[in-house]
């Protein structure tokens, strides 16, 4: 493991959020790197300081009573009398309007200052892939059965991702999980190629058009993205570029047959 890799995973290592293999990789690097050793010691010194003094603000003694009396008591509830001084209805409406405006302005300002949405997205995709390799984060539903993985997403997403198993072609499906990309919840499907992990991120595309695929190479990882059947796809892995291309071709070939009868969006 290089210093940069170890450095970027150091806080996750310190927090016990890495899987065993990576944890050992970082440990090996730290043993021979004085910079990483010093950073870890500083993390521990800081944690000790935070623990030594109680930064915790306990709730005031009367708050529990006030809370209980402010909760609606029956099934058919009237409007509760909760701090009318601070939360009259018109303020809430104004706050909501203001929130939308501020968020919109902030997002606009942000979009202006970034090199491009695509660059930002590919960085996020790669970060999600790397983080998925941490302990217990690879899959929320572990199954090689597409008929188990696909229904798992029901009720967790506002769309139904296409799930296919490519085990017969050497890319077994090993599970799925929820992730967040492009400011929305997306489906992450996890495949395996020998010992390597391939993450496929899927979410509905805004245009609904099918687009040509793009290929990116970043930090030794290959990222392929394309749009198809009304969905955006990003595949990312450290398998060889040729393997990932083959995988994507197999996936693209399998998907039209699945979406021949589109499911109603919920």
């Amino acid at each position, binding site marked *: 493991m290089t210093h940069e890799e170890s450095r970027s995973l150091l*806080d996750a290592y310190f927090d016990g*959020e890495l899987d065993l293999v990576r944890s050992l990789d970082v440990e090996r690097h730290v043993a021979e790197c004085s910079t990483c050793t010093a950073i870890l010691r500083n993390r521990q010194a800081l944690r000790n300081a935070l*623990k030594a*003094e109680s930064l915790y603000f306990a709730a*005031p003694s009367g708050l529990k009573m006030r809370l209980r009396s402010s909760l609606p*008591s029956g099934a058919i509830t009237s409007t509760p009398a909760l701090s009318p001084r601070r939360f009259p209805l018109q303020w809430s409406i104004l*706050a909501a309007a203001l929130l939308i405006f*501020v968020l919109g302005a*902030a997002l606009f300002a942000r979009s202006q200052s970034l090199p491009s949405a695509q660059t930002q997205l590919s960085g996020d995709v790669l970060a999600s892939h790397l983080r998925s390799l*941490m302990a217990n984060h690879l899959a929320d539903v572990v199954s090689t059965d597409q008929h188990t993985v696909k229904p798992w997403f029901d009720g967790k997403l506002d769309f139904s991702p296409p799930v296919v198993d490519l085990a017969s072609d050497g890319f077994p499906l090993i599970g799925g999980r929820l992730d967040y990309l492009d400011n929305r919840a997306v489906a992450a499907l996890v495949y395996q190629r020998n010992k390597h992990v391939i993450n496929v991120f899927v979410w509905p595309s805004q245009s609904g058009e099918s687009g040509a695929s793009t290929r990116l190479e970043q930090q030794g990882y290959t990222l392929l993205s394309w749009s198809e059947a009304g969905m955006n796809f990003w595949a990312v892995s450290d398998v060889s570029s040729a393997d990932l291309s083959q995988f994507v071709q197999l996936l693209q070939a399998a998907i039209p047959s699945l979406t021949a009868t589109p499911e109603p969006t919920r």
Partner: protein
Amino acid sequence: MLGQDKRSYFEQLMLPHLDAAYNLARWLTGNAQDAEDMVQEAYLRAFKSFGTFHGNGINDSRAWLLTIVRNTCYTWLHRNQPENLAASFDEELYTVADEAENSETLLSLEADLDMLRQAVGELPLELREAIILRELEGLSYKEMAQMARVPLGTIMSRLARARRRLQQSLEKRLIGE
């Protein structure tokens, strides 16, 4: 569920998290009165949407409640301290590796409570939130990522930045004494 049953089930599940809720609100709003209002508002919202508690991906009731507290506070901050949020957006443009780290070793930080409170209080909102949820509440990266609806990697880099800043600001304060 009938009203009284729902209510007692809600109280049984959610009232034990009152200190956690208040602590988070206190750190996000920066004062006691607003924190108390946030907690009341959040509990009321939680009660109203209690039906969605199961099967929404966050199984732990504390993480579920803290998500509502957090959202309530952010809504309030947008209205009352928008400058607080603006500063946080810029933070996202930096990554862990971009910043140099002080590689001298400190064996201990002999900081007192006031000093620590000030240092944590001066962190940008999202970094402060990361420190509170991780170091005080012990939430996992995954719970924190779901709460803020950001990738896990963002949580990790926020924690790295927060810790580095805290360390630097405490060192400055200790030397300045």
